[in-house]
């Protein structure tokens, strides 16, 4: 992996993040007057004017943007209107909960999806394949909020096995992690299956078989390795969907994470907080994709940009 590629990719990521700050900044000004938007409807004209001046909304937009960007660069992410505390503090406080949920959802869905995908690809058209495809189809078709509610209905209200929401113990984690991971699991299953079937039809697999390698070795050493490359790339892309799903899941299960904070902030019109959460989510996504791309270049010697 050449240093030039790494630098190129890093610069590209920085550029994307700069673009995201532009989107996030201007989104606030789409409705005309951000001051009126952030204050409660009963605020008087004078209050709005004073607030507008205090927040600096009466300056030209580009001056405001430069100012906004320079403050971000210095690590000043602003203060939440509702909580009257630094936004960064609020996010850091809720980060562990979201991380825990995302990791739990990611790990079970990747493991199971991978397993189902491989099993289905080895016997395409069989009953196992059909079963795996049905599961994949269901995971993709059921919206996360509906799945979450049905899980609550069955496991919490009818059978009283697990709590409807909350945080702190393992039993609180199970339902949200299942609801959030379902979509991801189905995506992994489908990808691994299609990619592996594709790889098994390639010439190098025939060569490997002709050499007299055991079937297990052919699959593990030759087919699976190549099949996994597109899987990793697309998985990184699907990561944004996982972040979006976490938002809804946290609301349904009263999970004290960043997603629920975002929805509360939007409902309270706490827009400085919303802005930073959007920036944060985009930064995570860009970082994950950067790492995957670098890893990809490291693993695949044909990529040299």
């Amino acid at each position, binding site marked *: 992996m050449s240093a030039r590629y790494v630098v190129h990719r890093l610069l590209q990521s920085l550029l*994307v993040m700069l673009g995201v700050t532009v989107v996030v900044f201007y989104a606030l000004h789409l409705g005309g007057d951000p001051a009126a938007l952030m204050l409660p409807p009963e605020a008087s004209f004078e209050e709005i004017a004073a607030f507008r001046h205090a927040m600096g909304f009466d300056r030209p937009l580009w001056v405001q943007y430069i100012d906004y960007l320079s403050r971000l660069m210095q690590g000043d992410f602003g203060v939440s209107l509702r909580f009257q505390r630094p936004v960064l503090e609020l996010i850091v406080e809720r980060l562990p909960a979201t991380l825990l949920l995302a990791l739990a959802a990611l790990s079970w869905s990747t493991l199971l999806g991978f397993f189902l995908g491989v099993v289905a690809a080895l016997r395409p058209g069989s009953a196992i394949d059909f079963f795996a495809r049905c599961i994949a189809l269901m995971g993709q078709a059921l919206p996360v909020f509906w799945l979450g*509610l049905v899980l609550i209905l069955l496991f919490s209200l009818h059978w009283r096995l697990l709590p409807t929401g909350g945080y702190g113990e393992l039993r609180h984690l199970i339902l949200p992690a299942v609801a959030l991971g379902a979509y991801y699991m189905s995506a992994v299953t489908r990808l691994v299956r299609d990619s592996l079937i594709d790889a098994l039809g390639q010439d190098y697999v025939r060569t490997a078989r002709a050499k007299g390698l055991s079937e297990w070795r052919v699959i593990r050493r030759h087919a699976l390795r190549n099949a996994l490359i597109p899987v990793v790339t697309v998985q990184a892309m699907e990561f*944004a969907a996982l972040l979006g799903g976490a938002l809804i899941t946290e609301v349904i299960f009263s999970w004290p994470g960043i997603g629920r904070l975002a929805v509360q902030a939007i409902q309270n019109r706490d827009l400085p907080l919303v802005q930073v959460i959007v920036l944060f989510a985009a930064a995570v*996504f860009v970082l994950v994709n950067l790492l995957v791309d670098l890893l990809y270049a490291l693993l695949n010697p044909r990529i040299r940009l």
Partner: protein
Amino acid sequence: MRGALTLMLRRREMDLWLSGGLLGLIALVTLVGPWLWPLDPLEADLLSSFSPPLSSSGDAWHPLGTDQLGRDLLARLLEGGRLSVAIVLCAGVISLVIGTTVGMLAGYFGGWVDALIMRLVDIQLAIPFILLILLLVSVIGPGIGNLVAVLGLTGWAIYARVARARTLELRELEYMEATKALGLPLYRTLLRHLLPNLFGAQLVLLTLDLPRLVVLEASVGFLGMGIQPPAPTLGNLIGEGRSYLLVADWLVIWPGVLIAALVVGCNFFGDALARRYRIRPR
């Protein structure tokens, strides 16, 4: 008849017909719903509130049951389905038009135009859709027009990516060179010679992208940030029903079934189309 059926099966186009039929049925039922089912989706009748669906000894007049105000769920589902489908279709077409145009320009010109457009695509895809949409809707306000605009303007990136890739291939073909040699104006080259060759793939992409929009629109509605009640949409029906999960689970279950049917129908239909016309849209 039986011969035709086996022929269809043998041609492996069952999925195309079944999924197409399912989508057509949903479209038809939601379109002519108000004439099919005479009950008013907004008319409250407190005496028959929380009447259970027919499947559990309910009233034949409310086959899917009623909500907390005694409004008929079937009528609300038909009305909500129509609103949601209309919003999603309009938004999808907006994304398709913007994305295809921008993608063709990027692929055709290359160079800095391409670099600029592809960075815009990266920026668009970096922000989770639901967050961006909630932020925009909370700034410009809910309402059908705003929702369609926000969903449409945030979804163009995938179309641009695919249109660009296809344009890059087509650009190298001889007939494109001929359009240059003939001195055709740019719009004519793009619209008459380039577009027809990638439009099919873009339409298939739209079919496969609709599930994302259906779920997004429903999610926004579920969070109470979309179309405001009393007007029903698939999302806000579930959002409202959530409070009555223990007494009236049908209020949550049936709208979800309709969403799932739409998503499955679109996925199958898109895949079947892609296979039939040998397009690889993703």
